[in-house]
């Protein structure tokens, strides 16, 4: 080897070849292995953490009814750990322990708010669980607002009717409780962990770490923001929604568009109306949906409703929503569960066909169209809460996504609804201001001024829920028609019928 060649080999090579000590040799031998082990351990930790914080999985229910009750539609918080989006409820452990953390704020637990619990389920119907962002999250699904209970007598077991309006649910108090307890000083990681363990939950070390270091703090910040945005719509002077009702669009104005609700006129801030039923959607496609008929697409209406449950285009579980869509597309309305006087019913059918069918039967000339407010003359608040400017904003929501709304419009009245399963859709009118069908057929001045909503024992005579017994008063909440938005005026059709014909008519309506 010439000198020139040595120089060309380069310094590093010379050093390696000339000076290698036993320590070098040993280290070179094991260093690769050690580095491999270190890298493997780091890789495993990274993979584990990625799996932990990025994985998104939820329980799949093969049975569609179970899926409807407990399956996730993607309303749990999602996105990324750094920029979470969506969701209206705190994580599972917090949600589960809230009633124990703030017992004074909800002495009867979630059931007292009208959430329906079944045996062997720790979450009520309508609350789904999903692993997202490194935490077991909970979210609301369709069933929370669309599952009702019915009893024959105060001593009967309740029947759970899927797709029926959740007439017993006080959603506003539910949200207010979650917000209030989330911000309560007693809501600490230590308290949540202790209460959860008292309730038999195994809280892993990682979960304790997440709860203690970030989760509770972040929850409080998010809840504060939520309260700042929509708290105004959920508290006086805006009248309470009461059981079985929701103000769809006012929280929407603040949460989605960040409008300052205080700047809106009170007339636009009152919009509570009844939960609708979910069955039989196929024949409704193309009809004016929502109480004021502001949308003609079942899919858009579904998606819009799921936004209210906390879904976003980022977090939506499209396949899950599609399953529900397919199910409710053909879901039959529930059969009236009690006896029907067939002869009365037959007489009532003739009256119905003559007096009601044009607006309320599938195939009726005006069914699914909007009835001008001047004509129907029912309470105007719900109509007025959905404003033109709001409608325009909806069209601009998620403009880049496949979920962009294109079917919303501002109307001038309330839509004529098909009356399938009408027995289960009490109380009546868009704002639930009339407790029974028989009362609806009375002149507005004779309709009950105050009644109890949310009691699930059925009044077979009047067709609707019992609203004036002591049991009803202790179980439900009082509805006052004198409060803005709660008016029970209008819809005079049928009020002039003779009493006997009214009986016949409502007997027939049990069969719809």
């Amino acid at each position, binding site marked *: 080897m010439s000198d020139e060649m040595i120089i060309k080999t380069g310094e590093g090579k010379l050093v390696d070849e000339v*000076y*290698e*000590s*036993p*320590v070098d040799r*040993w*280290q070179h031998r*094991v260093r690769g292995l050690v580095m491999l082990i270190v890298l493997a351990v780091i890789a495993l930790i990274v993979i584990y953490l990625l799996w932990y914080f990025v994985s998104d999985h939820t329980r799949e229910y093969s049975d569609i009814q179970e899926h409807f009750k407990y399956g996730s539609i993607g309303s749990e918080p999602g996105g990324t750990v750094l920029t979470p989006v969506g969701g209206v409820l705190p994580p599972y452990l917090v949600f589960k322990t809230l009633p124990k953390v703030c017992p004074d704020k909800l002495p009867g637990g979630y059931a007292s708010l009208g959430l329906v619990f079944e045996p062997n389920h720790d979450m009520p119907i309508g609350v789904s669980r999903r692993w997202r962002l490194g935490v077991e999250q909970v979210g609301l699904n369709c069933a929370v607002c669309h599952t009702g209970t019915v009893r024959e007598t105060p001593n009967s077991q309740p029947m759970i009717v899927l797709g029926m309006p959740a007439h017993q649910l006080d959603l506003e108090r539910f949200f207010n409780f979650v917000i209030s307890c989330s911000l309560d000083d007693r809501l600490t990681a230590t308290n949540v962990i202790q209460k959860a363990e008292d309730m038999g939950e195994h809280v892993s070390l990682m979960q304790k770490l997440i709860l203690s270091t970030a989760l509770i703090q972040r929850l409080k910040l998010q809840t504060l923001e939520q309260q700042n945005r929509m708290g105004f719509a959920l508290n006086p002077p805006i009248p309470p929604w009461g059981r079985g009702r929701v103000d769809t669009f006012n929280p929407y104005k603040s949460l989605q568009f960040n409008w300052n609700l205080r700047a809106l006129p009170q007339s636009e801030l009152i919009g509570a109306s009844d939960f609708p039923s979910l069955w039989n959607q196929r024949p409704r496609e193309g009809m004016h949906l929502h109480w004021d008929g502001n949308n003609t697409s079942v899919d858009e209406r579904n998606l819009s409703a799921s936004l209210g449950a906390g879904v976003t285009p980022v977090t939506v579980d499209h396949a899950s929503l599609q399953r529900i869509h397919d199910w409710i597309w053909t879901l039959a309305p529930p059969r009236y569960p009690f006896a029907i006087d067939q002869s009365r019913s037959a007489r009532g059918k003739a009256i119905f066909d003559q007096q009601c069918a044009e607006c309320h039967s599938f195939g009726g000339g005006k069914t699914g169209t909007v009835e001008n407010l001047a004509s129907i003359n029912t309470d105007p608040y719900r109509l007025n809460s959905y404003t033109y400017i709001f409608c325009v904003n909806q069209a601009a929501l998620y403009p880049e996504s496949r979920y962009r709304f294109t079917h919303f419009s501002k109307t001038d009245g309330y839509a004529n609804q098909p009356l399938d399963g009408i027995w289960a859709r009490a109380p009546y009118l868009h704002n639930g201001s009339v407790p029974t069908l028989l009362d609806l057929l009375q002149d507005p001045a004779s309709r009950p001024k105050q009644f109890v909503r949310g009691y699930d024992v059925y009044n077979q005579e009047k067709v609707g829920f019992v609203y004036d017994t002591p049991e009803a008063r202790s179980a439900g909440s009082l509805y006052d028609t004198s409060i803005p938005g709660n008016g029970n005026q209008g819809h005079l059709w049928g009020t002039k019928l003779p009493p006997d014909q009214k009986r016949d008519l409502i007997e027939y309506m049990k069969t719809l």
Partner: protein
Amino acid sequence: MDNDVIFQPLQFRNLTVKNRLFRSNISGRFDNYDGSGTQTRINWEESFARGGVGAIISSFVPVHLRGRIMPNYAMIDSDDKVPFWRALGDAVHRHDCKYILQLSHSGRQRDNPGVENFRQKGLSSTSRMDTFHGLLCEAMTLQQIKETIQYFADGARRAREAGLDGVELHASHGYLITQFLSSAINDRTDQYGGNLQNRAAFLLEIIRAIRKEVGADYHLQAKLNAVDFSNALYPWEKKGNTLAEGIQVAKWAEEAGVDAIHVSIGSIFPHPLLPPGGFPPDELNWWYGTMISSGVLGYFNYTMFHFRLLRPIFTFFWARTKKDHPIEAVSSQYCREVKKNVSVPVINTGGYQDGSVIRRVISEGYTDAVSIARPLVANRDLPQILQSGKDLPDKPCSFCNRCLVNAVANPLGCYDVRRFDGDHDRMVAKIMEVFHPSQFSTAAPGSQLM
């Protein structure tokens, strides 16, 4: 104080020392890289003699280059080193102080092998690496054992030729002879491994070879572990030799011809129990770096010393055995057991400074004399202070072991800045006095340091 036990002469078979205070083995990197001695070492040793100790036991003096702990320590591996040692002995003798040269071989325990040893592993009884720094080694062949025994004998001969007063075999603290003695280290299957007798054969053959070389009338002592405590640092290590085994080795050494036993403990150096006291992580962070490439665990250790978050992990292991032992007179109880079983005088080392403690261990039969290193580095005049009736100097040694950790990189001296009222410059100036007078100055050698 008349009749003070500390200042009674100690009579060995071939040597009499004026008092019971021995300067224990300690030195810095004061010599030439190749192991030839310098004026600095003479300054160093003479300063202790001037301070009043009865005898000085040299620092680790390698009998062969391959058995060197680190460069810049004077060696006794060749005849041309004799004049230096003679000059050193003469300097010490001027102060009525005896000088005992410690014949040593590091075996695998080479903190910094130096360029000459860079490409060879250390020699040992075993091929398993040292457990602290990961110092690599290879088991000695029978031929290498035979040669090494002769290196020790040659070293003893040279010490006698240099007019020194005796030699000590360094058979403790994990160096080569310990590597043969200890059941935790020696894994040989030949006549130098297995039972205690086989493991002790290397030591006993060295003693006999030295006696053959220098005769029966030259002082020869052995520094032995009473107990190994090999698992003091890492609990997963073997325990090593027990007290009973340590006593047995001492008895055999006496039978083979040693004139005294110097009792210590610990099968590595440093060891959590010896030198007793602190193990300052800040100094380790600053100076352990010089040892990183010496062993395969160097970088691991350095990482532990460097990061404050990791230090508690190492400290936990270092302190786990230490907490059950005193700092002062750390091995005295084991020394007493050795002393009961041998008839030659014993010297004990480990945490001696306080006069009352020293008097007690001597008068109560724990030992015949004590050897001291760090407290003398701090106060060269400790013997005079004790003789004056005081038990402690005004600024005593704190046993912080900063000197120990600095020794691998810096000139040896007291690095406890608290003893200098926090004045770092004054501390360094004191340390640097060892270099004066230099070989070319006109002042009398060693006249500065005191």
